[in-house]
């Protein structure tokens, strides 16, 4: 599906006045761009009815949340400062690379993405902004786009570009956000900088046969198992799925950050 289709769709909806004011251009929340609506072809298909997952239009941060932004948040929210957060909500690695609870310091440049944050902390940050974390489907939908295509995952050059990043170790000091190319929606850094939390991380792995509690983990993504799923050759998507499947909500790692999302004010067109 091309971007043209979406534009046409929005135009038609607007002309018909289908959703009243909602269909009209809504000013984007600060730092956000509109993504979708569209359809995600999930890399892992948990049931036959889920070959295609509809994704309603939503607002998404153009770039990941930075150290400076997270610092402003913890200044306002003392309970989320390093040392004050109970272990239940963030493990020992929480903001460990910061020089102090209120001082990011030399290893965490103000305009670099914040990492070392748990899912609970990321969610609290977004909520404080009146936003939320993007869902896994939303994030993956946005991340399927290249500079020119809404879904570029079948494009060899796009795949190779992603794998080149995934095969590079994370630098000790992360570069600033916004240095990578914007995708067709205007979103940057979905690839090439850090991993990102999503609201329902790992949940798509829970399928009929795992609901009784057999580990819905990553074993099924090892080796040949991965190749039996929907999108052959999309290793990068499998990696993200497997990575998220290994996470727990209190985990923190030195290359895992986040960005926020929001519903359109008038609801999904």
């Amino acid at each position: 599906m091309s971007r043209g289709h979406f534009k046409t769709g929005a135009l038609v909806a607007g002309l018909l006045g289908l959703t009243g004011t909602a269909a009209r251009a809504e000013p984007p929340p600060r730092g956000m761009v509109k993504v979708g609506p569209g359809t995600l072809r999930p890399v892992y298909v948990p049931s036959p009815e889920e070959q295609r997952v509809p994704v309603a239009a939503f607002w998404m941060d153009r770039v990941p949340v930075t150290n400076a932004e997270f610092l402003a948040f913890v200044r306002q929210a003392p309970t989320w400062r390093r040392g004050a957060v109970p272990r239940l909500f963030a493990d020992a690695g929480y903001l460990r690379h910061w020089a102090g609870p209120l001082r990011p310091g030399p290893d965490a440049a103000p305009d670099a993405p914040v990492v070392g944050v748990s899912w609970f902390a990321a969610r609290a940050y977004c909520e404080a902004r009146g936003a939320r974390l993007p869902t896994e489907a939303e994030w993956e939908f946005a991340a399927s786009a290249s500079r020119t295509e809404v879904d570029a995952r079948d494009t060899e050059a796009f795949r190779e570009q992603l794998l080149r990043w995934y095969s590079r170790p994370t630098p000790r000091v992360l570069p600033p956000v916004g240095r990578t190319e914007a995708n067709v929606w205007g979103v940057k850094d979905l690839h090439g900088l850090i991993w990102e939390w999503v609201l329902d991380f790992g949940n798509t792995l829970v399928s009929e046969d795992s609901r009784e509690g057999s580990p819905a983990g990553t074993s099924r993504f090892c080796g040949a198992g991965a190749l039996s799923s929907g999108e052959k050759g999309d290793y990068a998507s499998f990696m993200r799925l497997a990575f998220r499947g290994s996470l727990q909500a209190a985990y923190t790692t030195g290359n895992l950050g986040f960005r926020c999302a929001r519903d359109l004010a008038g609801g999904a067109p």
Partner: protein
Amino acid sequence: MRKHILAVLLALATPSAAEPPPRARAAKAESAGTARALPELSLYQLKTDFTDQDGQAVRLEDFRGQPVLLSMFYGTCPLACPLLFARLKRIAAGMTPEARARVRIVLVSLDPARDTPEAMTRLVRTHGVDPERWRLLRTDEAGVRDVAAVLGIRYRTVPGGGMNHESVITLLDAEGVIDTRLAGPDAPLEGLQERLTALTSPR
């Protein structure tokens, strides 16, 4: 080549090992202001608001002071949840009456839209369990995410309105810290039974 990429990826993806950090005592004192501070890993740190099957407002912390068996369910579940009830009944049957009287079985709904207090009361009746000891709770969507997150339970709504979720029974000690986690329908019960006995024995 592919193998190499995988190896690097796995290295990237490995979460940081939980090293004991130099905890900031001063900052900790802030949350320790109240009478008896909860342990850092206590699930009672969650301030989620619930309604129980009697329509009463509840917080998890209200169960502080006694061991709790905690799990999640949804009432319209055709298979996994009846199995969960059966399993919890077996665990309860394995306890002495004194121990049983001390343990609360707390089940949080994954489907608050349908699991109303009335529906939860019906469920308790259907399964013929003691409503004093079996407490069914509902909260909102964000609350469900929080509880599932601290219990490490993955779940999702599937097309058609049903849900897939992991079946995990968690034993909390009197302070709300996870003592034992029983994942899956085939996990042997003995270990959990032993821990229940230990936690309910008079000191």
